[in-house]
């Protein structure tokens, strides 16, 4: 089999069938565009979800107290386990594989006053590391709580963007709030920053935009809560989250004397695991969209097959002539397969280009919408391009193969008699 023969014959045959090829091309173009746009929509959604899920924090595990469910060392079950402020240092010292360990106090229904405005809010006592691990990013002109605030137990407050709106009004720019004094249960605090708005999918005990954050040490000095509400740890490596959690239970179990296998003694929320689950759901959605798009493309491919069959009927005599002058079966076979592949790829190329242009246009389109904040904007990725190309290749080949096998099996003497 000589590929140049097949190519020469193909390029000659292509010229005369312009109209038919063009129509089929449009069908493939449409199918390709559909699958591309659907996949791009899924991809945009996936990227947006992953961005949104990082609003809470990336690669962190949240830990809080629980109740034992197994008797241990003479203690009965049903014993409450509380976390304490010293547990932060205790855990950090014993587990070098943890990059960050921090604690958090939460108190609800604190009276917050600014000028004549009096509201009831939630106050959190936090570590400075929340800036990075929980994305407490300050707006320009402000800052997040720092180590010096911690060490000096300063009375400073970092506000969530919604809290700022409730306290100062939405029209006041965030930088103007910095330096203002607010009163928490009549104790004055200086506002040092306002959180940059973020999209947050997961939350525990309220959205971050509603926060009033003060230094952990200040919180303890003022309110004196006996127990920690939460601890957050972030490992250096994320490939063994389950192993690290097991070790945390062993270390904490040694201190509070609970069975390290008692998974109810402490409660945990592994963001990495949750992200994995969300990721799988997203893959499922993309697969679903891909299948819908694939079916659209399949219909177009059936169109190609159909046209190839018709074309074989019309060209029976031509096939006979070609065989009579010495075309091998494989050349006839290849001619039809290549024709189908040619149409498919050409249509696919245009379809991809159209889909790409559409998504790019949509990206720069000035649409502001909360739906878009959650769903994201359609995004074409290299993976999508490769996937679609492979699907096109398979469909094009199949579309051509069956008509081609029929064409190649034609008896030349009968084909020459065919009118």
């Amino acid at each position, binding site marked *: 089999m*000589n590929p*140049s*023969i097949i190519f*020469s*014959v193909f390029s*000659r*045959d292509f*010229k*005369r069938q312009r109209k038919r090829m063009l129509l089929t091309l449009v069908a493939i173009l449409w199918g390709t565009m559909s699958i591309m746009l659907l996949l791009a929509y899924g991809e945009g959604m996936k990227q947006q979800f992953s961005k949104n899920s990082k609003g809470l924090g990336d690669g962190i595990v949240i830990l809080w107290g629980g109740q034992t469910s197994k008797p241990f060392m003479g203690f009965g079950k049903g014993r409450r386990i509380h976390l304490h402020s010293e547990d932060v240092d205790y855990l950090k010292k014993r587990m070098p594989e943890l990059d960050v360990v921090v604690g958090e106090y939460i108190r609800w229904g604190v009276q917050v006053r600014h000028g004549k405005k009096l509201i009831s809010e939630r106050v959190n006592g936090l570590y400075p590391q929340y800036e990075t691990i929980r994305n407490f990013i300050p707006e320009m002109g402000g800052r997040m709580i720092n180590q010096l605030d911690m060490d000096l137990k300063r009375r400073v407050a970092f506000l969530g963007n919604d809290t700022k709106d409730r306290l100062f009004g939405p029209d006041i720019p965030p930088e103007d709030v910095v330096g203002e004094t607010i009163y928490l249960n009549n104790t004055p605090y200086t506002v040092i920053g306002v959180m940059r708005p973020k999209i947050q999918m997961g939350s525990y005990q309220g959205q971050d935009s509603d926060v009033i954050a003060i230094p952990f040490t200040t919180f303890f000095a003022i309110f004196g809560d006996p127990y920690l509400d939460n601890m957050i740890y972030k490992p250096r490596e994320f490939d063994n989250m389950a192993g690290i959690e097991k070790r945390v239970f062993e270390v904490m179990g040694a201190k509070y004397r609970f069975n390290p296998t008692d998974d109810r003694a402490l409660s945990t929320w592994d963001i990495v695991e949750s992200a994995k689950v969300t990721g799988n759901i997203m893959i499922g959605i993309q697969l679903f969209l891909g299948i819908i798009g694939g079916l659209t493309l399949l219909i177009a491919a059936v169109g190609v097959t159909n046209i190839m069959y018709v074309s074989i009927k019309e060209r029976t*005599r*031509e096939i*006979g*002539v*070609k*065989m*009579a*002058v*010495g*075309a*091998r*079966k*494989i*050349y006839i076979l290849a001619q039809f397969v290549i024709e189908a592949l040619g149409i498919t790829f050409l249509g696919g190329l245009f379809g991809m280009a159209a889909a790409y242009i559409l998504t790019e246009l949509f990206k720069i389109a000035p649409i502001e919408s909360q739906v878009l904040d959650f769903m994201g904007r359609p995004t074409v990725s290299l993976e999508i391009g490769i996937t679609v190309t492979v699907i096109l290749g398979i469909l094009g080949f199949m579309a051509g193969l069956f008509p081609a096998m029929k064409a190649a099996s034609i*008896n*030349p*003497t009968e084909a*020459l008699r065919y009118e």
Partner: protein
Amino acid sequence: MIEMKSIKKTYDTGSVSFDALKGIDLDVDKNEFIAIVGPSGSGKSTLMNLMGCLDTPTGGEYMLEGNRVETLSSNQLAEIRNRRVGFVFQAFNLLPYATAYENVELPILYAGLKHKERKRRVTELLGKVGLADKMANKPTEMSGGEMQRVAIARALANNPQLILADEPTGNLDTASGGEIINIFEELWRDGRTVIMITHDTNIAKRCQRLIRLKDGRIDTDNGNGNGNGRH
């Protein structure tokens, strides 16, 4: 060149089977000029298709230029059709969308020759049949005689020694038919073997040997000492 021994061809269409050839014994030497005549349905075209390896017999032995045709693969048969046999049909069977040049080029293309060599040969062949100025014309822009000359040029594309023509003048007027027969005669004088089916007794008379078929058998054969014809 051709040796056929009790060649049979039966068309089997499920319930009905039809014996197109019922046992043909035929020897053809190099450089013969043969007319095959006979009433329609006598098996002329079937015989010609078998000779040109377009079809395979259902019985008997066929040797073509020393090859046992029954033992050849479909690729080998394709190669024989490509290089050793030139076909000319009553209905011309040119590709309608292709130019004269492209039609003649097709067999050379399948023979796998390079573009330059193809061009040289096609130009030479079309010149030989007097169509050097019609190379870029499509069949629809040509007369019947011209189309048949393109078909002859195509049949000669890979310089085969055997030319098979199935009523080549059947669709032509007397004048252009005569020109076509002249070309065939010339090919024969060049040393080729030309076998032609015809209904025209005048044309048949110009051939050196006449084979008459009847009901799938050779009725008379005036050549080659087969013993069953007029000498």
